[in-house]
């Protein structure tokens, strides 16, 4: 009969030689090796759906690219992937190479990884195979995390200045778990719109991010008023703008509503590049500049420590 103390010793020995632990460690190392070549990792999140998070991500990427940065976007919204459409790379299959899966290269050279590029049609929902249909819901969460891990570790991102991660909406476990998979995440940008409901939800997601130790770089208020295309006059659309005091984070920019934002996204031609003189394009550039500034400042603080 084995003694309890011997079993305990064997248990420790087992952990050391566990193949599962080793393989999971290998996966983490692979993600880290890829992400080490990315200078800044920024997650874009919103507590609420429909506020234009993906559209902000794409235009922010273009604004950063215009500043000479190498940019990639990881479309982590696995159930509502829209980044490839907005960058004109819908349904471009990944090419497998010894270096990894080559990301699609969208407008202006922006690299994109998205589940959309693996789906057979633009309208196919993201569903996972399981031994029986009833297992689907059980595995969904685990499979989604594995996919994000593969996007981080298997995609040949190369050297990037910025990787923007378009997180799924909500304050559930998904955005948090995804964010925690990204090593050395610099921070999150929160997108909202000026309605009371949206602000409340966003305030919750800011707190949520802070509780998880994810630094919030600032907030982007989308659909912040309407800017007349003829005379340039601004009109409030949904309500009073957000203030820094209300939410406790810096406001990085207020993007005025412009119907061309949606139209250009549908055509895969980002607004910032298509209408460089529009007020909304100027705001996107300002947001990009402030993010860069915040990250440089953060680096200065760390260097000074």
């Amino acid at each position, binding site marked *: 009969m*084995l003694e309890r103390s*011997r079993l305990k010793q*064997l248990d420790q020995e*087992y952990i050391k*030689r*566990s*193949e*599962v632990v*080793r*393989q*999971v460690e*290998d*996966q983490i190392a692979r993600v880290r090796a890829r992400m080490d070549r990315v200078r800044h990792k920024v997650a874009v999140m919103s507590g609420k759906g429909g506020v234009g998070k993906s559209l902000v991500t794409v235009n922010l990427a273009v604004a950063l690219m215009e500043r000479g940065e190498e940019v990639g976007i990881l479309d982590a919204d696995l159930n509502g992937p829209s980044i490839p459409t907005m960058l004109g790379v819908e*349904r471009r*299959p*990944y090419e*497998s*190479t010894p270096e*990894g*899966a080559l990301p699609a290269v969208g407008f202006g050279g922006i690299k994109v990884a998205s*589940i959309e590029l*693996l*789906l*057979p*049609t633009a309208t*196919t929902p*993201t*569903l*996972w*195979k*399981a*031994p*029986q249909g009833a*297992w689907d819901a*059980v*595995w969904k969460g*685990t*499979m989604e995390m*594995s*996919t994000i*891990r*593969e*996007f981080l570790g*298997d*995609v*040949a991102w190369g050297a990037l200045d910025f990787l923007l991660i378009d997180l799924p909406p909500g304050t559930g476990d998904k955005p948090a778990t995804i964010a925690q998979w990204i090593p050395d995440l610099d921070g999150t940008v929160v997108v909202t719109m000026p309605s009371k409901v949206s602000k409340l939800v966003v305030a919750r997601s800011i707190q949520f991010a802070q509780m998880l130790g994810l630094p919030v770089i600032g907030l982007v208020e989308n659909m912040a008023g309407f800017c007349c295309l003829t005379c340039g006059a601004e009109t409030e659309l949904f309500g009073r703008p957000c203030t820094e005091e209300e939410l406790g984070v810096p406001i990085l920019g207020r993007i005025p509503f412009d119907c061309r934002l949606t139209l250009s996204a549908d055509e895969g031609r980002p607004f910032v590049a298509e209408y460089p003189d529009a007020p909304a394009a100027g705001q996107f550039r300002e947001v990009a500049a402030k993010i860069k500034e915040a990250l440089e400042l953060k680096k200065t603080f760390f260097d000074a420590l």
Partner: protein
Amino acid sequence: MKHFCCRCHVYMDYENHEPLDEGSLGIFFRCPGCGHRIALITNPGETMLVHSLGVKLGGGPVEGEPLELTRITLRGSEGREGPLWSAEAKQRLERVPPFARAMARQTIERYALEHGYREITEAVIEEYKGQMGALG
């Protein structure tokens, strides 16, 4: 999970695994001391749990195709290499009344897949129509 031989006080070695039924596996271990073999039978849920972690049974190198796990487990991804539509073919599809367009698209895509076409061009549509005409 490891198995331990209580007689020899050593860990058993993984030997191999075999699929038994839809999703279930038989995983075989042998004691390096006395040679005693045991089999662990997994149910589909347990198999899927290991699978979803992206680890391989029995260990060994984890190198595989990039995005392998996602490609294997995502429904419909095996059809990802399915036909694309040329611009002209898309225009032809637009001629179909909206209520019947989805059905027409699916039918032609299925035809293209069955005949090994990676892209649906006007020529493929003509070929399909020709065959349908011959049948009718």
